[in-house]
């Protein structure tokens, strides 16, 4: 293969991996605080629609990203209210949230479409970042902005979790809410903040899917990517660094699935299209019984 092919492939891998990275980080941030963020798929979908709408109505894709972040905060508030304060079952709430999210986004989308709004947003690239950034952005042009942000976040979360004091507190809440509570931490507050952050990350995943990839929206366009992010967290043993490689692997599976077909090996197309899913399944099977944070999924009741 010529160099050109590889470069193209690498960029396709990054494109496919970026939304997964955001979602996986969103799941990881929550699980490390003891919350199963099944609702990440819903946050992602809501973020995808918000990003497109923001970009369409303002004409500026960066404001679309801001809209996605706001939507993520809103989703996080709902999820935190349900799973941390009520507390309702985290898995059931997450699944219900995902279903509601599909319904609500499809409903809004249809209202807009019937109102004559065309949902083709401008793509996000360094160009719109503003003139004074240009010396910097010219060099970065090859890496899309949201991909760069995802990479920085992965490194940041890795360092924060495993080499800082707050990281130890964060992990303690996920490992043993009792111990954290006894040490004077507000478990509910930490978990709520983690869910806010996790949902914002999920929504950013949606923004990466739309503004960073195909700047439009269709019903249920995330198509289970949030769950692949979830699998990446398990495969990555709840560590951002390993999780990053898991996301790259899944992204590569997706990019390869398209390419293998285009190279015309002549096999049934479904064979290639199932590749990312088989990879996900295989990865989870290889990891086997990995132990996540001990208190993940258990509601914390004071007293």
């Amino acid at each position: 293969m010529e160099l050109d092919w590889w470069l193209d492939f690498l960029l396709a891998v990054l494109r496919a991996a970026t939304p997964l990275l955001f979602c996986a980080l969103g799941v990881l941030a929550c699980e490390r605080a003891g919350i199963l963020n099944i609702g990440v798929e819903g946050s992602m979908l809501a973020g995808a629609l918000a990003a497109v709408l923001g970009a369409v109505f303002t004409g500026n894709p960066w404001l679309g990203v801001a809209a996605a972040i706001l939507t993520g905060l809103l989703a996080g508030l709902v999820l935190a209210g349900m799973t941390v304060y009520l507390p309702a079952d985290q898995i059931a709430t997450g699944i219900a949230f995902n279903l509601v999210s599909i319904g609500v986004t499809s409903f809004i989308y249809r209202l807009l479409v019937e109102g004559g709004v065309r949902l083709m947003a401008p793509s996000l690239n360094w160009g719109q970042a503003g003139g004074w950034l240009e010396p910097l952005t010219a060099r970065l042009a090859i890496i899309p902005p949201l991909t760069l942000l995802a990479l920085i976040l992965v490194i940041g979360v890795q360092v924060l979790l495993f080499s800082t004091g707050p990281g130890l507190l964060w992990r303690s809440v996920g490992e043993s809410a009792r111990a954290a509570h006894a040490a004077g931490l507000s478990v509910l507050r930490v978990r709520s903040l983690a869910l806010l952050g996790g949902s914002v990350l999920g929504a950013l995943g949606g923004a990466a899917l739309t503004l960073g990839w195909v700047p439009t929206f269709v019903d249920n366009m995330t198509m289970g990517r949030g769950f692949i992010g979830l699998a990446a967290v398990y495969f990555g043993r709840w560590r951002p660094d390993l999780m990053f490689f898991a996301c790259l692997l899944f992204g590569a599976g997706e990019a390869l699935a398209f390419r293998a077909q285009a190279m015309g090996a002549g096999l049934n197309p479904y064979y290639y299209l199932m590749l990312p899913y088989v990879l996900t399944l295989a990865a989870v099977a290889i990891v086997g019984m990995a132990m996540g944070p001990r208190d993940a999924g258990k509601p914390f009741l004071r007293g």
Partner: protein
Amino acid sequence: MPINLNPISDTAVAVQMEGICKSFGPVKALDSVSLTVEPGEIRALVGENGAGKTTLMTVLYGMLRPDRGQLRIAGREVGRDWSPKRAMSAGIGMIHQHFSLVPNHTVLENVLMPQLRWTRLRPEWARHRKTVQGLSEQYGFALPLDGQVGAISVGQQQQVEILKMLYQGASFLIMDEPTAVLTPQQTDALLALLGRLRAQGHTVVLITHKLAEAFAAADNITVLRRGKLITTVPCEHTTPQAVAGAMVERDWSGDVDLRLPERETSWRLEVKDLVVGEDHRQLEVDGVSLAIGPREIVGVAGVAGNGQTELAEALVGLRIARAGTVVLAGQDLSAWSIARRLQSGLRYIPENRHLNGMVADLTLAENLILDRSESPPFSARGVLNRRAMGRAAAETIADYDVRTPSPDVPMSHLSGGNQQRVVVARALASRPRVVIACQPTRGLDISATAYIRKRLVQCASEGAAILLFSSEIEELIQLCHRMLVMYRGRVVGELDASNFDTAIIGLMMSGQVAS
């Protein structure tokens, strides 16, 4: 950061609680309790279950807000915002019965955690390590600072808890039933540590229902009964008998008559080379053989987690044994279902009544016949006979002195002791041939304990073979003809009633002597 390596008396706090009241629904858990603890003393807080010992201390630690009453720390009354955090910064630390540790984190991380702040990105790890190391050595702990807490012994975990409190500058330590999880040797070590803490000027409140420990360690003993403070006396001016008398309401005449029946020479239950566990892991039960005759009580001692639970569950059929045979009166029941084992007269008193012993939302009467619900007289053609159930329940309530407003209240409304009476009553009803009794008196107060022990002996004298798993050595010594000691899934020692010796049993439990 408030790190005080050598807290001395003047930093230790005096605690005054006055007229503390706390109700949970209609139950008065604390009824106008006033308690003063002087700096530098070891105070034992004794009482039966539900007497309010733990409740009182959780009020002091700020985890519960009292309905009424005042709390003065070092002479100053605390505000309404009293919380564990405030208590901690006032030097009061509480070690709960269930440890508040993070098993997947290292010892050092666990000790440091409460000191860390969200705003401080880079704590001085090296300085912390040095201080913790020094503190650990000062109190004679041999703790691997970088070892995972989940991998060290329970005794060491308790040391980590204590170290954590000390490192936060606690000079007033509340310990809730600290010896419940320890071997006799570890218990002795802990009591010695309490002495060292006092020597350093610390104050300790020891919540316990074991009078021997209270007398071994404490300066003063406070007795609580039904939410009321009965008395506070210096140890040297009282006797265990007097304290025990103060703990129970009725006249209670020391030991019940527990004459053991003569055992027979034939075997009722024979277990050969039983193995439980999975590949690639330490086997939970590693080739255990034992035999029990009719009218015999055989005890199994051991530190929790050495295969006792698994052995019991394998005998009852809750776990599949990988190898070995279990023979009941000549019949091999290894391949039998739980139901068939029950039908052939095997009965089980589970270690954890909440998990395996009862259905909390069903009524007392329903729980009582759970294992016989499909056989007469309790059901005919699949329909429950409520009248027969009511009769059986009334009998049990009378026989076992279960305190309940009616047989039709949900089990969850009963106190722990009364729940356990129902569980035991069910197991011992209808002439069992073999009883597997696991921690039948755990967490029960003196009178309930005595009653259940009496029932077990009575059951044996009526012909049953009883295998008794207990973490209370005294209980085993009192009730058993023979005692087996388990360590790491094996039976490492067998003793006859004639040569029961706490010291030897303790050593066997820690795997140090194999007889």
